[in-house]
């Protein structure tokens, strides 16, 4: 079965003064078309739907429209991110039609959404974990004997415990044939062995290849076909170690740490992550696939080189596979640097319709720079002047820690008198300094 994984829509955001809502509407249209064509089982939106807690009216209308159109075609599961206000986004979650799941509250963590496979396969269990406020979630998730430390890792770990508990309850155990029977990530102890026939430990090894005497791929198929277990998908909004951020994400640091290790999602086949705006996958210790879908639009010039896409994930036997579907680019971004002459030359003609960040490196700021550059590039968003090398003024000794008063005074003499200080003059300065130091210890 297949589903679409997207995230970080940031409806209502602007890019250096340009309103992006129109372009976001275009993206929504494209997404709806994709869903209509591909008919996935669900669309998973992993957080940061809105750009801010109280979103602008247009963004609310756009989301309403998007959900209306998408739910006619498929199931939509939404979690709140760190930009969203969980409660506001989750308004009316219980009143929505069943095709929409707004998972924004901690209470719902550990409850699965069962997706049936139209093709008749075992389907999937989707566990949405909204972005959790560490200082509220940590006490809520603590047990009597153990208080959770206030960190993303601990909170996510505790949330995932709930997920794993639910999986246990369903009789779906740890499903990781490659790593065999070790007990990674099961805090409740107890080696619940997979409920599969004939794959129990005989003499300590559990490698199906060894046990069955067949090659690994075949063995996996056998294992996965065992009992028709559904795929386990986890949705989360976090910064996972190994991910690369860009300029446009908001910092998540709590207690000095912003990220959580990927191992926290152990037990899931696919982790549908949100928060980082560049589409990327994160290394995990196992066959688990943990992926950021990335934002559908570029929100900063650091994303200029990225290809914006949504992920089409195929679940089934074996690890999930991902296909990236590119999303429309409203206007490409580019970063250029050069002297004014270079910039005005024909070499950059092809960038005239891009959104641009321009750095002018002339040693002296040219007159009328701003106007000229704007005339040249109509879609200029950021302009800065950073002279190449260090100007003469910067060669002055920085008067900071450890600068000796004598050296500073020598600089002063040069600055004020027009020529460097002679040795005699320096000697006078030193003598006076000694007298001052001796006279008044401060």
């Amino acid at each position, binding site marked *: 079965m297949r589903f679409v994984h997207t995230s970080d829509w940031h409806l209502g955001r602007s890019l250096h*003064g340009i309103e992006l809502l129109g372009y976001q509407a275009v993206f929504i249209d494209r997404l709806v078309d994709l869903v209509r064509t591909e008919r996935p089982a669900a669309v998973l939106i992993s957080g940061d739907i809105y750009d801010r807690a109280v979103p602008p009216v247009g963004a609310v209308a756009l989301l309403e429209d998007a959900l209306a159109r998408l739910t006619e075609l498929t199931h939509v599961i939404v979690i709140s991110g760190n930009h969203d206000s969980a409660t506001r986004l989750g308004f009316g979650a219980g009143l929505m039609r069943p095709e929409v799941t707004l998972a924004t509250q901690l209470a719902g963590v550990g409850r699965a959404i069962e997706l049936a496979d139209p093709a008749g396969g075992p389907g999937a269990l989707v566990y949405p974990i909204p972005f959790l406020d560490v*200082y509220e979630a940590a006490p809520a998730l603590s047990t009597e004997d153990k208080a959770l430390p206030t960190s993303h890792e601990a909170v996510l770990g505790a949330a995932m415990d709930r997920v794993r508990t639910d999986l246990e309850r369903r009789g779906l155990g740890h499903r990781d044939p490659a790593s065999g029977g070790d007990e990674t990530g099961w805090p409740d102890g107890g080696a619940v062995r997979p409920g599969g026939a004939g794959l129990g430990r005989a003499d300590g090894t559990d490698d199906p290849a060894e046990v069955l005497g067949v090659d690994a791929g075949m063995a996996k198929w056998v294992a996965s076909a065992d009992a028709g277990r559904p795929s386990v998908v986890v949705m989360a909004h976090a910064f996972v170690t190994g991910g690369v951020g860009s300029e446009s994400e908001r910092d998540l640091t709590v207690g000095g740490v912003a990220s959580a290790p990927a191992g926290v999602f152990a037990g899931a086949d696919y982790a549908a992550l949100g928060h980082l705006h560049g589409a990327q996958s994160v290394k995990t210790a196992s066959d688990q696939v943990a992926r950021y879908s990335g934002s559908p639009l570029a929100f900063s010039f650091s994303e200029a080189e990225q290809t914006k896409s949504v992920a089409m994930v195929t679940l089934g036997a074996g690890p999930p596979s991902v296909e990236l579907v590119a999303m429309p680019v409203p206007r490409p971004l580019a970063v250029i640097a050069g002297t004014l002459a270079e910039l005005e030359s024909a070499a950059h003609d092809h960038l005239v319709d891009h959104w641009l960040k321009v750095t002018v490196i002339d040693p002296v700021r040219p007159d009328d720079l701003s106007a000229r550059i704007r005339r040249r590039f109509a879609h200029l968003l950021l302009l800065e002047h950073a002279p190449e090398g260090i100007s003469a003024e910067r060669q002055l000794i920085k*008067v900071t820690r450890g600068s000796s008063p004598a050296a500073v005074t020598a600089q*002063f003499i040069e600055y004020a008198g027009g020529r460097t*200080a002679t040795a005699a003059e320096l*000697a006078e300065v030193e003598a006076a300094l000694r007298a001052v130091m001796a006279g008044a210890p401060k």
Partner: protein
Amino acid sequence: MRLHKLTFAGVGPFAGEQSLDFLGLTRSGLFLLEGPTGAGKSTVIDAIVFALYGRLADDSADLHRLRSDRADPSQESFVDLTFEVSAGVYRVRRTPAYDRPKVRGQGTRPVPATARLWRFAGSSGAGSEGEIIATNVVEASREIPLLTGLSAEQFVQTVVLPQGKFADFLRAKNDQRRGLLQQIFGTGIYKRLGDELRARRLAAERRIEQEAGDVQRAADSLVSEAGLSEAAAEAFARAAAEVISRAERTTLDDLASQACTEVDHARAAAEAAAETAAKASQRSAALATAAEQAASHAATRQTLDNRLAQLKAEAPTRQVQAAQLDAARRALGAKGLIEAADRAGLARLAAGQALQGLGLPLDVSETAPFEACLNQAIEQQAKAKERLAAAKQLAKARQAESAAHQAKVTAEAEVAASQAAATALARLTQEQPHLMSEVARLERLAEALKLHQNATAQLAKAKLTLGEAKTAYDTARQAETAARDRRLAGMAGEMAAELVNGEPCPVCGSPEHPNPAGLALDHVTLEDVQQAEQVRLTAESAYERAATAHQKLSSAVAELAGKTAGTEPDKVPQELANARINLRDLGEPEALNAAASQANALIGTRRAELEGATTRLAQAHDKAVALAEQSSGETVDAATSGLKSAETETSQIQAKLQAVRQWIEAVRSASQAEAAAEEAWHQNGFESADTVRQALLNQTAMDQLEAVLTADQAEIRSITDRLADPALAGAEGDPAELAAVAKLTAQALTAAREQEQATAGASVLAQAAAKRTGRASQLLSDCVTRFNATKEAATPLIRVAELAAGGSANLHDVDLPTYVLMRRFDDVVAAANERLGPMSSGRYQLEHSDTKENSRSRLTGLALRVRDNQTGEARAPRTLSGGETFYVSLALALGLADVVTAEAGGIALETLFVDEGFGSLDNEVLEAVLSQLVRLRDGGRVIGLVSHVEALKQAIPERVEVRPLPEGGSKLKVRA
């Protein structure tokens, strides 16, 4: 500086105690102080500022706002802050002044502000006891700015950016900004350096001036030593000036050597002249000596001859004098004895005169009769003494007798007196019982009067009660009667009510009751009647009781009236008091009795005494009578005078005897002395005493004569010797002529000598002048050399000092401290721009400009301008919009904190509070500002933001939540 912990109570809207641990928040680096408007967010910042500086963040706010209105009036508000500066960890606790309601009475009593400051030895303030450094507001307010390095004004521009005032630093005038930057960066050392250089330059210039003066003076002295003319002096002065101004010394050197040479020439000439004159003088001297000698010899000889002749002429006088001397020597021998004889004669004369004075003739020679008289007189004297003694004794006895008589009279009188006293006492004792009974009677009377009064009053009351009771009784009775009547009247109805159809009527017997009477509306039931009866009975008994009481009272009153009839009630108390007083004065019966017995005893004693006195009187009388018989009856006075005359006689006779004795003695000795004297003058060759006296001369005269004679002899001998000298023997010629010649030669000599002296003097002067000139010239040369050296050595110093003071040589009109500040400020601006670029999406950059603030301030360098990259123009900060001003100020504050933290001598600003201002930013800018702020997390700093903006709540997980309580007030909760 870094904050550790803040605790406060009763401040702003916080009634209870609130506590904030900053160290826990430091881990996150950034926290949000959020809450609804008016909840008390800014109060937390005010509390911090108050703890440190005793004022609110906004100085214009009223300090009374600090004390919470919700605090219990007796509870004190306090703020307690533990903070760390480079000098260590300190804790300050302040309470604001407030008005406390008085414990007693209305109104309030002002309680003054207090402050205490502790220092902790260790690195943490918890647990350990600090040593107290300041105990009152004045001391703490002095100490804390020194510790933090910032005044209150500066604190609220750097560490705390208060609401509405964050732009103060951005918009500050140059001077204020300079003050703040100087304070923060500690550029004091450069100012001191500038001062030191200036002082040294002044000293160097003074030295140069001095040495220029020396050169001038040396030149002048050379001129005067060399005795040069005016024109030459002027030339020297000009040459000296040339040296001073241009270091050109050849002219001066030439002039100096020229002067030296001239002076030398003069010296040589003077020496030659002196030599010539000396020689002439010598020759003249020789001539004068010879002439003089000749003249003097001749004169001497003449004198000697004359004198010798004189002496010889005096010879006869000398002989007479010799004889005189001899006679005087002889008379001296006899002198003593003659004098003795004279004295004895005088003594005899005196004795004779004495004798005659006493009436005795001069021819007495016997003392025996006088002695016999004397013995008689002594006897008489003794007898007179005895008589006197007897008379005295008699007088004494008589006196004793009269005294005894007096004593007896006194004793009799005393007896009489004591008898009288005893009688009086007996009388008093009798009186006492009467007085007591009188007092008792009066008391009873007073008592009765009082009772009568009370009883009368009570009677009146009882009468009233009686009246009331009667009225009540009447009423009750009437009511009862009325009730009965009405009952009866309505009896029909009552009975009719009991009628039952079919049953016969009790009155008429009819079983049918077609028209039974109805109960009247005011029908009275049996119960009502019975009630009325009860009421009546009650009233009746009450009435009876009242009547009885009244009766009793009136009889009592009548009785008492009888008792007190005829008395005047007003006077009774007074009489009673008087009687009491009299009784008290009388005293106790026992005391009286005792006194009476005492008096009787006294009578007995006195009587005994009287008897004794009488006996003594009789004794004295007898004694006196006995003595009178014995004596001769002479009085004391007579006896005394008798004694006196006897004594006088005795002494007279004694005197006479003495005189006679003396006369006899004197006559004898006188005749002896005269005989001796006569013998002496005969021996010495005199005929009589007179001749001896004439020959006497005193010692001085004798010595003189002898001297004269001796001298005379000696002179004659010497003259003779001298005349024998060959030199004189050969001297011839007229002394007068010779003397004239000698005089002429002497005059010539004098002249020659004068000449010699003059030239010698001139020579000496010339030598000295030449020497001095030489020295002056040398000195001048040295001075010039020194002057040149000094000037050269001081040139670099002078230049450096002038530059450091921003003098005319300074190309940029910037003095040293300002330059250093400018450079630091450059750093600050650069650091600020690093943040400002992203916050403003590259639009704004801060620039530090050199333009003058106004034409009067010469030294500048700290003006700020904002360059707008969109237009390319630089603008004054005042032209920014509200939101722009906010983030520019924030960037500047962060830049300042960055640079200061890196500065060794500066104050580490590790804590920063930004109170509001985020609401003026739009969402995009807010995101940009936020992204800058979160980057501060890892700088080891704590940044506290106060805001109600929703996006910040989303973005910053560490929070201090300020929540209003339902009953009023607020509380803090830390979420970290």
